[in-house]
């Protein structure tokens, strides 16, 4: 049973009296105890999708179409006040940069307690105890000492763990993490990613992980959604997508990544640049860079086809082809 169901999500903004749609045709489901990865290049609409789920896009003047069903309720129909009771306590968000998301003049422990007290009816002392316990579960060494420290006294990895504790403190059912390890070193990235995986399983939450790193997706996620220029091009189980990608973009993207022991000169590149929101091409947004595009791709945008219960692809050329 899925806890989050996004159907035909569309976000539009009006910029200089012109309508732009940075997100179109995004549909996926997420289950509890599962890591769903969203991967894409800069400007592909990953973060905006997360903001839409959190109900933040309407606050900055966007209009949302489609539906976002969380535990049987359509979040798009909730009032801002009702949404506030969901945001944070049921759907929590972990921002990209732990360095800038902590207040430098407050002790980190108190910053977690503050969030907890806002969302749950709980006494200060009890909250502190709970937070220290949670910090321990996130493998923070000497949690009662770290509780008293200021952000600048902590390393990047520890700061990221504090931010994760802030997200988890109210026991949400969904955690959205937006590029949580881009600011960290590789050895620390490995620690944090494995921690995320462990938390998803032990707390039975749904983790929505946004990243541009296909390696992280392959190792951490159960399902993946591939985004390109604001549209979802492919969605499916991790092994299916990585072993037999259905969309030409997914295929090409996987060939762009170097790995150890790879033959020199065998790296492939995708020709051209990622289009920006005001220069999206007509038809399939990937067609100018696609090696197998034809006139149909130029004219009409492909639909996001459901192939099996858990996989979707948006490509004119996938129809009827099965290899």
């Amino acid at each position, binding site marked *: 049973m899925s806890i989050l169901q996004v159907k035909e999500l569309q976000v539009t903004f009006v910029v200089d009296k012109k309508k732009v749609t940075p997100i179109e045709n995004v549909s996926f489901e997420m289950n509890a105890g599962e890591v769903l990865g969203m991967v894409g290049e800069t400007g592909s609409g990953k973060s905006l999708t997360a903001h839409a789920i959190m109900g933040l896009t309407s606050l900055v003047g966007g209009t949302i179409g489609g539906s976002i069903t969380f535990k049987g309720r359509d979040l798009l129909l909730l009032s801002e006040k009702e949404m506030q009771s969901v945001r944070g306590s049921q759907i929590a968000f972990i921002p990209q940069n732990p360095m800038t998301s902590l207040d430098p003049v407050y002790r980190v422990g108190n910053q977690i307690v503050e969030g907890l007290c806002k969302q749950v009816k709980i006494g200060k002392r009890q909250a502190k105890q709970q937070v220290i316990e949670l910090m321990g579960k996130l493998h923070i060494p000497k949690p009662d000492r770290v509780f008293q420290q200021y952000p600048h006294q902590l*390393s990047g990895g520890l700061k990221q763990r504090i931010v994760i504790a802030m997200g988890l403190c109210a026991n949400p059912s969904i955690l959205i993490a937006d590029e949580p390890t881009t600011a960290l070193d*590789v050895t620390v990235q490995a620690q944090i990613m494995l921690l995320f995986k462990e938390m998803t399983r032990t707390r039975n939450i749904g983790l929505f992980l946004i990243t541009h790193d296909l390696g992280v997706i392959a190792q951490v996620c159960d399902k993946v959604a591939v985004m390109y220029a604001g549209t979802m091009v492919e969605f499916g189980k991790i092994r299916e997508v*990585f072993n037999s990608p259905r969309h030409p973009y997914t295929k*090409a993207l*996987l060939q762009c990544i*170097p790995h150890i022991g790879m033959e020199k000169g065998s*790296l492939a590149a995708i020709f051209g640049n*990622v289009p920006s929101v005001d220069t999206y091409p007509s038809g399939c947004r990937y067609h100018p860079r696609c090696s197998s595009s034809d006139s149909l791709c130029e004219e009409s945008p492909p639909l996001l086809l459901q192939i099996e219960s858990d996989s979707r692809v948006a490509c004119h050329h996938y129809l009827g082809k099965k290899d």
Partner: protein
Amino acid sequence: MGKLLEINDLSVSFDIKGGLFLRTIGTITAVNKVSFTIDKGEILGVVGESGCGKSTLARLILRLVEPDSGSVLFNGTDVLKMSKKALRRQRRHMQMVFQDPYSAMDPRYTIFRSLIEPFQIQGVKLNHEERRKKIDDLLELVGLSSEHGSAYPHELSGGQKQRADIARALSLSPRFIILDEPTAALDVSVQAQIIKLLEGLRERLNLTFLFISHDLSLVSYFCDRVIIMYLGSIVENVSAHLIGKTACHPYTRALIASIFKTVPEENTATAALEGEVPSPFNLPSGCVFASRCKYVQSLCREQTPILKESPAGGQVACHFPLYN
């Protein structure tokens, strides 16, 4: 193939000032007795986590930062002993491409003007037509067109800007280019384009590269040899292509194990290291990696291992290298 660059015992440390009257309260050893060579036409990779001294090393080689000790021999002449005038002439042959293409170009200059600047600095006299021709050739070399010359940096995409940045480094036909994380700010599809461009340029122009990156997979693909740095010291110097098989320093092994492979079946990524890179402030004696090493023994905390030949073919600085 001869040596193009030979670096011996290069060190630099910075004083940290603080407290009342800004007294020196400690020193950070950014680069600690680093020695290596680069052959003509070779691509040498430098890998390490943030703060390991990769970028400082690049700046030392170009003498943008003055070292405390050591020597940098470029084609047999010591760059560090050159007069200011000679150094300026020397810089024609050694150029650098910076990490962030967004801040490496002057936002008020057109690409054309940014590309013509190196010629003016080096006193190369060109008439109007020669200038046009030179810049058009340079832009074409990096896969841009002459229209891009009249654009301002903000009008270009990240990949195009990095191409312009490479064109600027190539303008005086250098023999050696330092690439400091040239693709870190770019998307993977664009990263692959830039890497392919660099591969082609090296072939055509017979260039030698020092390629700095934190991405071990990328370095092992693009480079011929890799040096792994940790807290200012080289811990290993190894063949790039064979790194998966021949690396024998515990830190290099841990870096390899931390890579998230794009093959879901090979569930290999492990948190191979506990903790984080310690502060480079007043380093303890002994091996720099001792505080995080799984195989640490008492000797490691007492004596600093020196870089010596390893039977696997590279050089390693470890008392107990992993030879299996």
